[in-house]
C-alpha cells in the first residue's frame, strides 16, 4: 500500500496482499432439522391453500373440492350425488362401486338388461321386495337371493339410487321419480315376499 495513505485507512484495513481463505467447519445439524421442519410446514401450507395445481382454483378458494361445493347445482346433479352416496352405502358392497357385480355375490348392474329398461317400474320391485331364484343377466345364469335392501329408504332416496344406477358406468337411461317408487311400494305391500325372475318379467317395464 502506498505510504501516503492516511493514518485512518491504515488502522481500518489491513495491508493484506494475500487472497482470502475460508475455514472448513461444517454446517451444524440443527440447521438441517430446521430446513426439514420448514419444508414440512411449507408442504402442509401448500396442501391446504394451493389447490394442487388446478388452474381453476383461485383465491379465496383453496381446493377443487371447495370450488365444486360452491358451484350452483341442477336437480339432476343433486340426485346423482345423493344416489351415489346411498348406492355406495347399501348396494356397492355386493354389486361393486363400479357396478360391475362380484362373482358369487351379485350380478353386474352396468349394461344389465334388468337396469336398461325403458321405465323403472320393474327394476324398482327388486330393492323394494327382494329377488330370489334363478335369473339370467347379460347371458349368464345367477341363482341367489337378495333381500329388500331398498325398502328402508325414502321414496326420494331410492329414486336417487335408481337414477344413479341407470345413469352411471355407461348406463344412459332416464331418471326415476319419487312418484314411481311410491307407486311400486304400494303395489308390493307392507311385508312383501321376494319376487322370482319369472314373476318380474310379467311386470311392465
Amino acid at each position, binding site marked *: 500500500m*502506498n505510504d*501516503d*495513505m*492516511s493514518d*485512518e*485507512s491504515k*488502522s*481500518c*484495513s*489491513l495491508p*493484506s*496482499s*494475500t*487472497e*482470502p*481463505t*475460508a*475455514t*472448513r*467447519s*461444517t*454446517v451444524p445439524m440443527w*440447521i438441517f432439522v*430446521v*430446513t426439514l421442519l*420448514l*419444508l414440512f*410446514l*411449507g*408442504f402442509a*401450507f*401448500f396442501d391446504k*391453500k*394451493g*389447490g*394442487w*395445481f*388446478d*388452474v*381453476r*382454483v*383461485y*383465491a379465496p*378458494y*383453496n381446493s377443487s373440492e371447495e370450488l365444486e361445493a360452491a358451484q350452483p347445482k341442477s336437480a339432476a346433479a343433486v340426485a346423482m350425488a345423493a344416489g351415489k352416496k346411498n348406492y355406495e352405502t347399501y348396494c356397492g358392497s355386493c354389486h361393486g362401486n363400479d357396478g360391475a357385480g362380484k362373482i358369487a355375490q351379485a350380478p353386474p348392474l352396468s349394461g344389465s338388461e334388468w337396469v336398461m329398461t325403458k321405465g323403472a317400474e320393474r327394476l324398482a320391485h327388486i330393492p323394494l321386495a327382494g329377488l330370489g331364484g334363478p335369473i339370467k343377466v347379460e347371458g349368464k345364469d345367477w341363482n341367489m337371493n337378495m333381500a329388500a335392501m331398498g325398502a328402508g329408504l325414502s321414496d326420494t332416496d331410492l329414486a336417487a339410487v335408481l337414477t344413479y344406477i341407470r345413469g352411471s358406468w355407461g348406463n344412459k337411461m332416464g331418471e326415476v321419480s319419487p312418484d314411481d317408487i311410491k307407486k311400486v311400494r304400494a303395489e308390493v305391500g307392507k311385508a312383501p315376499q321376494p319376487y322370482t325372475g319369472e314373476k318380474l318379467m310379467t311386470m311392465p317395464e
Partner: protein
Amino acid sequence: MKTQDPRAKTPDATIDASCRLPLLVLFNGAALWLVLGLALSVIASLTFHKPEIFACCPMLSYGHAQAAANDLLVYGFCVPAALGVMLWIFARLSQTELVLSPLPFIAAHLWHLGVLVGLVAILTGNTSGFAWLEFPRASAMLLGVAFVLIAISAVATFGQREERELYPSHWFLLAALLWFPWIYSTANLLLVTNWPVRGVAQSIVHWWFTNNFIFVWLALVGLGVVFYLLPKLTGQPLRSKFYALFAFWTLMFFGTWAGIPAGAPVPAWLPTLSQFASMMLVIPILAVAIVLVKTLRGAKLFCGGSTYGYIRLGGLMFLPSAVLLVAAACPQYSRVLEFTWFGAAQVQLHILGFGTIVLLGAINEIVPLIMDKPLPFKKFVPWQFFLSVVGVALFVIPLLIAGVQQGHSNFEPNAGKFWLKLSMGGLVLLLLGSLLLLTNLFLMTLKWKIALVKTVAAAVVAPLENSEVKS
C-alpha cells in the same frame, strides 16, 4: 508469500493494472448513472407530491422520471459496478492478469451506450411498459451482448486460476454471471417482442423476472463481494466455506420461486408456492447471518467510514432486506402490506442499502489499487458512507411506515403522505453522497489522462540523445 515462488506469482500491482482500463470505464459510467438516477428519483418524488412542478416538461413527469430512475439505479449503476468488481475479484483470486482485457473495455462502452439509449427512450416515452424492463429492444440487445462479452473475459480469467479449489465468492459471482443472461433474455423474449406471451402469463413472467433480478441476482453479487472483501479487509478467514455453500444453494433454490404476490389474480397454486419459497428463505438468511457474525467476531477493527465499514454494513443489510421480503409474503402480513409502499421500501432497501453500499465500498477499495494512487479526496469516502447510511435510513424507514399506514387505510388517498415527504430527504442525502463518488472518480481519471498526455508529449518533445544524433 512472494519469496516462496517468485516464478509463479504475478505481483498484485500487475494484476490490478491489467484491470485498469475496463474497470475505469465501468466505474466512471456507473457513478455517473448513479448520480443521474438519484437525481431523477428526487424529481420523481417531487412530482409525486406536486405534479404541476415540472408541468412544462413532459419528460420529467412522474411516470418517466420514476421508471428512468429505477432503471438507472440497477442497469446504470448496480450491474456495471458489479461487473467491474467481479472482473477484479476473478483476476485477484486467479492470481493472473485479466484475460482478454480489450473485450470488457469495449463491452463496457457498449453497456453504457445501451443504458444511454434506454434512458433517452424512457424519457421520450418509448418504453416496453414493464417495470424494470422499460428499456427498448435495441438497448436490451446492447446490454445483453455487453454482459456476455464481459462474462467471457471473467470466465476466461477464472479458467487461468492456479489454486484449483474454488473460494465461496467464486460460486456466487459465477452464478450471477450465468443468472443475468438467463433471466434477462427470457424476460425480454417473452415480454418485449412482437410475439409476447398473452394475458396473465405476462404478469407471471414479469414477477418472476423482477424477483430473480432484484432479489436473487443482487444477493448473489452482493454476498459474493462481501464474502471476498470481508476476510481480506479484516485479515480473518471466512467462517466457513460450508456455511457459505449452504447459503448459496438454498438462496438460489428457494429465491427463484419467490416473488409472486399473495393476492395476485392467478391460479392459487402460483402465489401459494411463491409464499412457500419465500418462507424457506429463512434458511439462507440464517446461514448468511451465521457467516457474517462469525467472520466479524474475530475482527477487532472499528472504523465507520472506511471501505471495511461499507462492506460490513452492506453485508449486514442483506438480513433486514431479506427478512422484510419473507415477512411481506406471510399470509397474515401480506393481507395488509401487499401492493403498498412496503414492497417498494423492501426493494429500495435491497438495492440502495445492500447492493449499492457493498458495491460503493468495493469501488472505493479497488479504484486506488488499479490506479496505483490514492483517491483525490480521501475524506469523501467516510463522508459518502455517512450520507448513504443516513440517506438509506431516512428513505426506507418512512417508506415502510407509509406502507403500513396505507395498508390499514386502503381508501384514504392521503395515507402515509407525511412519511412519503420525509423519505425524499433520504434521497437528497443519497444524491449528495453519489456526487462525492463521481467527483473522486472523475478527478482521478482526469489526472491520470493528463499525466498520460504529459508522458506522451514529453516523449515526443524530448531532445534526441547524442548517440541518435550521431547515427
